[in-house]
């Protein structure tokens, strides 16, 4: 192979299957918790989103290889997440403090 090639990370098949299995397990967990365990709101949503965040981390870090990648790409993802949260917070500062919800909506 060419001498230019520094190592691209190659995940082992076992590693990838382990991540896939973990994602499957977390999917089953989130369904069981939502359907068969009465978690009082708002903690049901908090639980479901927390599990989704763990799954998203596994996909981003080990399927999308951010764990081994240059840090700049991970920063891009975190910036996107931050600006999404900013958008939601600013929007809610308006919509949650209206006297009347716009009637037809």
């Amino acid at each position, binding site marked *: 192979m060419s001498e230019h090639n520094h190592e691209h990370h*190659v995940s082992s*098949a076992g590693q990838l299957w382990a991540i896939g299995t973990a994602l499957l397990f977390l999917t089953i967990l989130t369904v069981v918790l939502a359907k068969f365990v009465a978690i009082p709101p708002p903690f049901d949503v908090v639980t479901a989103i927390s599990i989704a965040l763990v799954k998203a981390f596994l996909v981003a870090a080990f399927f999308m290889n951010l764990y081994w990648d240059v840090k700049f790409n991970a920063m891009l993802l975190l910036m996107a997440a931050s600006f999404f949260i900013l958008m939601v917070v600013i929007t809610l500062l308006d919509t949650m403090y209206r006297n009347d919800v716009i009637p037809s909506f």
Partner: protein
Amino acid sequence: MANHSTSHPTHVQHHFVDSDQQFDTAKMGMWVFLVNEILFFGGLFCAYIVYRAWYPELFTEAALELNTFWGAVNTVVLIGSSLTVAMAIRSAQKDQIEGLKKNLLITIGLAVVFMVIKGFEYAHKFELGIFPGEYYTYEGLEHAQAAVFFSIYYMLTGVHALHVIIGIGLIYWIYRRASKGEFSSEYYTPVEITGLYWHLVDLIWIFLFPLLYLIE
């Protein structure tokens, strides 16, 4: 132009120093596109959050019309397809072109399964008269804003499904190029960045599933 390209592999374009720089640049470009995708879906998620904060009882009620079982099956299908894409990239990195093609085909198969299930879900709702916006005619839900929930549902899942369809096209294109022997451990950039796109489609669904199907 001076001929200084003798040491360059054929896939490296003139304006890159070497194969690695070209690979990293393409990948960063894809991540910038994915940032745009996240914020694009972000607007829809934002609408979801605003309406759920306004009408929590609507979401509890209307979500009962969604079938958790098929939603969960589709989640597993998409996770499986993310795994096969990751395996496809691994095959390319190890020069196993047959493995690459096989994994791409399984991915396309799983994506089609996802779309078929989604199609049945949509068809069932259309039969009941659950259409978005003003076309909503279903009378099984008391809530005055019932149509709003389904407008959000159709926008989120519809735009996601559009991404799945585009993904099927992209993965088929990668499969065709793999068949022509264009990829090897030296050059698999299109496999890698199409993989990134596909993982993002999976990532979006990871959030859509609990937010739409798992409201109790």
